[in-house]
């Protein structure tokens, strides 16, 4: 018998705390696989966020730092500038990156920091219990908009890839999804490219990944297809997949 697929070296054999149907586990796995394939594990430093993925610092088998909510790109900046040989990635959710950390992500892109950002967009605050996120869809219910998000009350979902694409310093921006197998494979390719850009010194790269949160979306935990259906039918029209920026550049 031949082993076809094994746990990536970059991901430790630890039982994860993520809920059934959550996308974080899959995303951790493809980030780790990309690290393995590029052979960068021993020089990678990851920045874990505040929120559900706070324990990413435990799961990834590389040096990790956990810092304040939204400040991942600032921490990554400090690490990368102090240790230019390291490969630095920031792993962030939508509340972290697109709400409290909006200034940090925008200015990291403006400076074209040579870092890799993994942005997990599931349109909800997870760990705090399902509050409205900056990416929550119009009409989507959350614990701070129980009747569904209204534009009049809370404005519109922010499209980070589209917004950051207007910034000259942004090198590579792609939006992918993990609600389908082809989507997972494409996500890994995008993450590899975002790391490769950093290895090549090309500047700021971000992969925005649409992901599921059955627990806080209120979709059935015993039927994950309800959540993947939400991504397909409700999120994709608002957050179209694709490459938003792919700038040829040598830093």
């Amino acid at each position: 018998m031949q082993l076809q697929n094994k746990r990536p070296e970059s991901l430790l054999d630890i039982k994860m705390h993520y809920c059934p149907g959550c996308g974080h586990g899959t995303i951790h796995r493809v980030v780790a696989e990309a690290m393995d394939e590029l052979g960068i594990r021993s020089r990678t430093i990851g920045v874990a966020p505040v929120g559900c993925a706070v324990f990413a610092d435990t799961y990834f088998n590389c040096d990790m730092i956990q810092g304040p909510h939204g400040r991942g790109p600032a921490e990554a900046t400090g690490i990368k500038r102090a240790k230019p040989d390291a490969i630095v990635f920031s792993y962030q959710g939508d509340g972290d990156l697109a709400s409290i950390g909006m200034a940090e992500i925008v200015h990291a892109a403006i400076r074209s920091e040579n870092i890799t950002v993994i942005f997990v967009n599931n349109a909800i605050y997870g760990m705090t219990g399902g509050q409205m996120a900056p990416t929550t869809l119009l009409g989507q219910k959350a614990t701070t908009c129980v009747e569904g998000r209204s534009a009049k009350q809370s404005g519109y979902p922010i499209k980070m890839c589209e917004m950051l694409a207007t910034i000259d310093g942004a090198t590579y921006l792609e939006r992918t999804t993990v609600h389908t197998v082809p989507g997972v494979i494409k996500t890994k390719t995008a993450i590899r490219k975002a790391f490769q850009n950093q290895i090549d010194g090309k500047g700021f790269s971000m992969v925005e990944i649409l992901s599921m949160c059955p627990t806080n979306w209120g979709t059935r935990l015993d039927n994950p297809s309800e959540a993947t259906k939400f991504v397909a039918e409700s999120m994709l029209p608002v957050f179209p997949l694709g490459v938003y920026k792919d700038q040829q550049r040598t830093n």
Partner: protein
Amino acid sequence: MAEKKLMKGNEALAEGAVRAGCRFFAGYPITPQNEIPEYMSWRLPQAGGVFVQAESEVSAINMVYGAAATGVRCMTSSSSPGISLKQEGISYCAGADLPVFIGNVMRGGPGLGNIAGAQGDYWQATRGGGHGDYRTFVMAPDSVSEMGNFPHKCFEVAFKYRIPSMVLADGIIGQMMEPVEFINPEIDPKTLTEPAWALGVNKGREKRIVKSYDLREGYLEVMVNERVKRYKQMEANETMYEEKMMDDAEIAIVAYGTSARVSVAAMKLARENGLKVGLFRPITLWPFPKARLVELSKRIKKFLVVEMSLGQMVEDVQLSLNGRAEVHLHAKPGAAVMTADEVYRTMEAIVKKGAKEYAAAK
């Protein structure tokens, strides 16, 4: 003897940090400390270091948080409102046991306040400032020379005890020009050993994590208590103060920074008028030189705290003395500076009219 250079306090602080091995600076403009980032912007690249102008104070302290995790000597600087913004990050540095150095050149507050020098952030600096149980090593310079030489001590203590350290100056010390002599040996960071906890490029070693949290029951308590042990060591070993004319003093002024300079003039005035006055100047505001104050209180029964605030350090003097002597206050809040004459008249009132009468007159 080393060469003396005429410098602004802020520039001396920046140069002193570079000489102490600082190779990373992130900051954001705010008056009256702008000379620090300006100086660092050209000086650090010259020394092979990194300067980043951040988009905000919040981002700046988090860049420093990241850089510190890699073991480099790094710093940020700001002034009062900007330091308020950095407090969450400073709390994380304390919680993650990261040695960082912070220059705080105080201005008037609260709110936007005033851009003139003040001492209204004593509580913020010495009580931790951010959320949670922690301490910060705080040094208060009263001259441009001390601005230039204190960063060396701050880095040494920060790395020895893995704690954030701060120079708490006021805008006057930051802006004034004086000759400065850098007395510490210049540190080449390449000669420093990389800390055992530093993140970085590893070959085969176990992964390292820098974090300030532990959600498991009981573990955070262990983490904080381990830190408390280091705080106690610091209280025992790192307290600094200066005394002037204390040998025969019957009344002691307690003051730091610009207030201490004014107090020296007031003391001389008092001596000319027959009052036996001395000056006790805390150099470390945390750890506060409690033990020495208690010792002094065996023979000195009147203490006058002089500060450019509504009266903040006075509480530490009261806590230290714990009723062993009278503690009076000459407070000057609102980014104003007391005159030597005003301080002298307060002393005269205390000595001649008696404590109770003075207190009533206030």
